[in-house]
């Protein structure tokens, strides 16, 4: 658990060309270390640049300055293509390919990464089983509910057996009840798969249920880390009854105070 999988050093990001009025600074000097098998949550208001940060982490966008170290190797401002196989990215709006079935969407990942053979086909079933959708292998995305689609999205991000699971507001587009159900499911998936997870959210309860550590981002652009919170709630207490846990309520009060004071 003490192995550092990510070491992020003073990452900044701005859009638009240098020295012009259109230049927008989004992220300013974010540094953090992420441990192996840790569940890290990045908490921030909408529009504060937390998704941008996650896209840099996931190799979708390059940083403007700073450097990212992954598994002890310094990759500079952008994670190279061949390393991205070690990541699984879950998008806010499931982002499934509508012309492929549930199984087909998972197979797409394997095809893109040239992973062939019996054991990978078996892994498709295994992952669908983990998200509870084994019976929906042959359905197309439009035949599934929003929550189911998001579960397929999570299974897809796990099928190539990555080291890191990156979740960009995975529950943001769901209704309140599905959202709650699925947050418990993410917790179970993390326990079962033992992956390092980095998740972005704007929901305090979700963050406290899931995270080992929470990074709170400042609400004004360019954003930076305003607080780092260790969530010392034992794993056994994290279930439907977490709302009665004393530590949970203390932390919740504290984070809400932070959020309120920064607005």
């Amino acid at each position, binding site marked *: 658990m003490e192995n550092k999988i990510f070491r992020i050093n003073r990452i900044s990001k701005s859009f638009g060309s240098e020295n012009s009025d259109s230049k927008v600074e989004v992220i300013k000097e974010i540094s953090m270390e992420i441990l192996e098998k840790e569940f890290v949550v990045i908490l921030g208001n909408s529009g504060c640049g937390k998704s941008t940060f996650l896209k840099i982490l996931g190799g*979708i966008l390059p940083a403007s300055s700073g450097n990212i170290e992954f598994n002890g190797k310094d990759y500079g401002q952008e994670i190279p293509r061949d390393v991205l196989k070690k990541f699984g990215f879950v998008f806010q709006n499931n982002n499934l*390919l509508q012309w492929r079935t549930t199984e087909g969407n998972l197979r797409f*990942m394997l095809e893109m990464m040239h992973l062939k053979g019996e054991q990978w086909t078996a892994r498709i079933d295994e992952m669908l089983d983990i998200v509870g959708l084994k019976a929906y292998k042959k359905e197309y995305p439009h035949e599934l509910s929003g929550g189911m689609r998001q579960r397929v999205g999570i299974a897809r991000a796990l099928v190539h057996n990555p080291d890191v699971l990156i979740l960009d507001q995975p529950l943001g587009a769901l209704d309140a009840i599905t959202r709650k159900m699925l947050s418990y499911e993410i917790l179970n998936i993390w326990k079962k798969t033992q992956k390092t997870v980095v998740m972005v959210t704007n929901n305090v309860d979700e963050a406290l249920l899931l995270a080992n550590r929470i990074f709170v981002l400042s609400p004004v652009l360019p954003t930076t880390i305003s607080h780092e919170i260790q969530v010392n709630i034992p794993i056994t207490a994290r279930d439907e009854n977490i709302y009665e846990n004393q530590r949970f309520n203390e932390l919740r009060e504290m984070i809400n105070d932070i959020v309120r004071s920064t607005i």
Partner: protein
Amino acid sequence: MTKKRIESFIAPIIMFLLIFTGWEIIVRALKIPKWLLPMPSQIFKSMIVNFPAFWPHILVTIETVLLGFIIAVPIGILLASLITSFKVVNAALSPYVTFLVMVPLISLVPLLMLFMGYGMNVRVVTVIIQSFAVVNMNACTGFNNVPIMRQELMQSLGASRLQSYRRVILPTAASDIFTGVRLAGIFATTGCISAEYVGGNMGLGSQIIKYSQFLKTTESFACIFYVTIVGLMMYWLISFAQKKIISWKI
């Protein structure tokens, strides 16, 4: 479901019968001369009796339409891919594509004939010009409508630009592209007939002109009906292909 199917099958047949019996009755009742407006029964009879005379022209028209269409569709899609992928290509080509869509084709045909004579070439080129632009414009819309999220998915997998295009962008844009292809099928037919109208003595368009100059209105109408049949065949062919290719469509 079956009731719906019967409705969609029976309704056009009833409408067809109503229009043509109405037409037949009016022409008979008002004793309209044949050279002005023939009766449908006479037209259908001519379609069958004169079939040997029409057949080579029908064949030429089908050939021209198909050949032009088959060349135009890939050109349209390829050009749209380039236009939406590279800003330079967009800036360089878009005005000319718009120009080709806006210029009435019939005004270009005499010029083309000046360059290429009266043969098959000029007709095929006309069909290509008429139909590639509409494929191109719809395909551009399709490519531009691909959500950024899709590109991000491919980037998160470390995919190359070509991989993203083939595996995700093209299929996502497919239904918009097919709208263009469908329209191109119609435009190809009308483009072909206009080219045949202007010059030459082959193809159904040339026959429509020829018969109407001799006041053989019945034969003229028979040719127009055959044009309609060619157009409908194109439409069905494309719809069939669309169903086969975009099987996931909701």
